[in-house]
């Protein structure tokens, strides 16, 4: 307990330095600015803005990136409420009641509740990360290659189950991602694999290139193809602060949303995605009058938004303690850390405590800044949303190109991104979800490494995964999760959750 306070105090002493507050503020602002553009989610935003942080010291860079992440999340919720376009999967639920509230002239309250709920969730999540950081790191240090491999398999099993649409297709995407991860020089023998003669591929495919192509470019292609009627709320935003009645209605949903989102966010395999859906379903089940949902129920904004933010933050836990990124955003964080020479994993906390605790404390600072500075600026974001898409997407394209070029100063990377943009378009046409592919790619290299080590240790005996209790347990969880998802009754309700 005293450790926790001491560590947090240490973190705040770093996060509250003038430079780091400024970086956090800049990150939150720029993140919101880009994230509020319809169709630009946190992944594309971070990939685009990664080069902004190259010149900073590692702690500052990660604080700024984390700020960009929250800003982009917040921007996504704003577009969900005001324009009915979710910036990313996790704010889909917010469109249901949030946009209805906006239509009824209560946009300000929806935004205010979302921000207040997120702030509360963020505060709790920061404490959870700080509390779990030390014990989980100790556990992680006990993990051998077999345990790591099994944990990642379990993560991928979750990702398959949590993906939208067909389980088989999601499995196919994971496999494709794992396959793409083997591109490049083999770590042990130094032989080149599947580089097709491109020298830039011998280091493997850059994750930012893949993510920007599959998410950024492909998203623009989809938007141009289906020019959806963007009905930016014409009415007034109204007041931002909810009244006593609103607050009373929201307290319980915010508490439940925080608990649900925070718990799911810790799961490897992008559990955070499920948080808002789960929270919405719970609130609807518990409501006295479920028919209000979908017609502007404030609980339908407060719960999911809190779950969203709590999950967004607790998904840092697997990255910071185990070194396993649970989703694409965290994989970009790995990229950023590696650029600064930090290898994410259990050693970060003991080797660079300033970075570890500074970043955790800055999460709270970032959430606070979002609340007190961004919310009043809502008028600015609304004006930005009224820019027609025909002007917006060329600007997004140029920013993306400059961002990708700057990561490695490589024009070839821009061409590869264009290629993956096309691949993303093809996948979309074939009804594939790109998210599992990215996760497979993210974990692929580490999984191969750990599997090879485990096999060497076990002298080629696959039974090592059965004899090792922790690994066996995790593999069993993976199997159970998939089996449950295939059961007819569950798969039906799973369809319902995703279509709702």
């Amino acid at each position, binding site marked *: 307990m005293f450790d926790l306070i001491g560590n947090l105090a240490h973190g705040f002493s770093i996060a509250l330095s003038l430079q780091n507050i400024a970086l956090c503020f800049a990150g939150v602002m720029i993140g919101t600015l880009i994230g509020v553009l319809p169709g630009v989610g946190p992944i594309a935003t971070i990939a685009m803005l990664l080069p902004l942080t190259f010149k900073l010291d590692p702690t500052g860079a990660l604080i700024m990136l984390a700020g960009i992440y929250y800003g982009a999340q917040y921007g996504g919720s704003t577009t969900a409420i005001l324009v009915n376009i979710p910036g990313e999967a996790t704010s889909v639920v917010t469109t249901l009641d949030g946009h209805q509230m906006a239509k009824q002239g209560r946009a300000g309250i929806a935004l205010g509740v979302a921000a207040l709920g997120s702030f509360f969730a963020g505060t709790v999540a920061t404490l959870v990360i700080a509390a779990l950081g030390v014990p989980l790191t100790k556990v992680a240090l006990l993990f051998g290659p077999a345990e790591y491999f099994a944990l990642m398999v379990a993560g991928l099993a979750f990702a398959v189950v949590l993906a939208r649409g067909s389980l088989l297709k999601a499995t196919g995407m994971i496999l494709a991602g794992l396959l793409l991860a083997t591109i490049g020089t083999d770590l042990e023998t130094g032989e080149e694999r599947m580089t097709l003669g491109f020298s830039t591929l011998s280091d493997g495919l850059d994750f930012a290139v893949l993510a920007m192509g599959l998410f950024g470019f492909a998203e623009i292609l989809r938007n141009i193809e289906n020019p959806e009627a963007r009905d930016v709320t014409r009415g007034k935003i109204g007041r931002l602060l909810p009244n006593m009645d609103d607050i009373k209605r929201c307290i319980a949903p915010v508490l439940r949303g925080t608990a649900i989102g925070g718990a799911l966010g810790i799961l490897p395999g992008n559990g955070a995605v499920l948080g808002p859906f789960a929270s919405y379903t719970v609130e609807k089940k518990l409501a006295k009058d479920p028919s209000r949902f979908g017609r502007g129920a404030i609980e339908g904004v407060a719960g999911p938004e809190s779950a969203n933010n709590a999950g967004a933050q607790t998904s840092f836990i697997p990255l910071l303690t185990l070194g396993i990124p649970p989703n694409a955003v965290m994989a970009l964080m790995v990229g950023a850390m590696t650029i600064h020479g930090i290898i994410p994993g259990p050693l970060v906390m003991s080797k660079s405590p300033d970075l570890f605790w500074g970043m955790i404390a800055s999460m709270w600072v970032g959430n606070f800044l979002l609340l007190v500075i961004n919310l009043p600026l809502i008028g600015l974001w609304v004006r930005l949303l009224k820019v027609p898409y025909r002007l917006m997407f060329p600007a997004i394209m140029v920013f993306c*190109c400059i961002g990708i070029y700057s990561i490695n100063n490589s024009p070839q990377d821009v061409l590869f991104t264009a290629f993956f943009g096309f691949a993303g378009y093809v996948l979309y046409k074939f009804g594939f979800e790109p998210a599992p592919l990215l996760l497979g790619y993210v974990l692929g290299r580490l999984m191969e490494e750990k599997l090879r080590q485990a*096999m060497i240790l076990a002298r080629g005996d696959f039974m090592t995964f059965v004899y090792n209790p922790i690994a066996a347990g995790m593999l069993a969880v993976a199997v159970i999760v998939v089996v449950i998802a295939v059961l007819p009754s569950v798969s039906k309700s799973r369809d319902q959750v995703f279509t709702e």
Partner: protein
Amino acid sequence: MTQETKRFIRAPQDMAAGLFLIGLGAFALWQNAGLERGTLRVFGPGMMPTILAWACVVAGFAVGIGAMLWNGPKLERWTFRGPLFILGSAVAFGLTVRPLGMAVAAPLAVLLSSMASSETKLGEAAIFAIVITVFCLGLFRFMLNLPIPVAPWAIGY
């Protein structure tokens, strides 16, 4: 029974998806054919890619067989204007940014990508291209000092 349910391929989109996975796996198998597989005890460089490629092929077959058993969505219509100009603009940027600099590559990318939408007005796009270029030069090159060529043919950097 109606004609609809008698079709051999009941879910054309899934069939295409299955074939895509099979193709991807087959391509990877071909590329990795020359690599040492090694043994379970000591993996060679080709072991993982080969296993994964076969898994892709199997998943592809499973998706394809599913497409013959259950009804599913049709293939969506493809458009060419969007991909051509959007991806073309990125390619143009990649090809011109080194030799000609951002002063050429950025407006070129804006103009080309603008062509992707039928709502674009040419005059507006031209003005916007200039505005965006000035903004990007100011932000990325002069404020953030990123080493992007500006206009090597005119000012030497």
